[in-house]
């Protein structure tokens, strides 16, 4: 099971702060993204945005990073703290 979380504008656009999905692992962050879109196709305009950042177990990673069962995958807009 993968824990998927969303933040900021993306959370508001999807009206969801996350979900859990059971998918075959190991897979990639991009595979997780596609599995989410398969379940929620109406999220495509927001979740398929190439400007989004991804984190895997709380580290920023590229879309091809390897995901294992039990991992947490986060999608969020470019950060604006500081």
């Amino acid at each position, binding site marked *: 099971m993968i824990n998927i979380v969303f933040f900021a504008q993306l959370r508001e656009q999807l009206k969801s702060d996350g979900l859990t999905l059971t998918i075959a692992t190991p897979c990639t962050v991009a595979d997780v993204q596609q599995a989410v879109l398969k379940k929620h196709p109406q999220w495509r305009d927001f979740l398929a945005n190439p400007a989004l950042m991804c984190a895997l177990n709380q580290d920023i990673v590229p879309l091809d990073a390897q995901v294992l069962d039990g991992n*947490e995958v986060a999608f*969020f*807009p470019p950060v604006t703290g*500081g």
Partner: protein
Amino acid sequence: MTLSSPYDFLSVQEADFDVAHEYAQLRDHNSQDGAIVFFSGLVRDFNQGSDVTGLFLEHYPAMTEKALAGIITQAKQRWPLSRVRLIHRVGQLQLAEQIVFVGVSSSHREAAFEACHFIMDYLKKQAPFWKKETTRQGPRWVETLKKDEEALHKWQQDDPKHS
């Protein structure tokens, strides 16, 4: 990830911070360091063309401290820093309130300036905080700035590991 030195300090908090206290923590019982540099970031009333009246800071709680500790570790690998203190606030902030503090001490002025600047540039691009401004035109998520991206490239070019 945790901080490796007891003299370093990292906090993500709703409460305000006291710059005089932070400065004292960098300075006290520290006669080997000749240089302290700090940065303080404040909520300003004009940003990206709107009149700002306040700010809400969202973050990714499980990741925030890990990301900031990683940035401090990178800075300490690159410059001879004795002490680093970093505080970032979250939640609802009013106009002119303090948002972020980064303070470093070093025996060398150049190292202190560069490391403090580096930490802020990396924090701006890699720490999971998002600002939602309250403006006279309604609430609005702050957009990322291209110049913040460029600020990061500068450090990557300067770093022998990346050139």
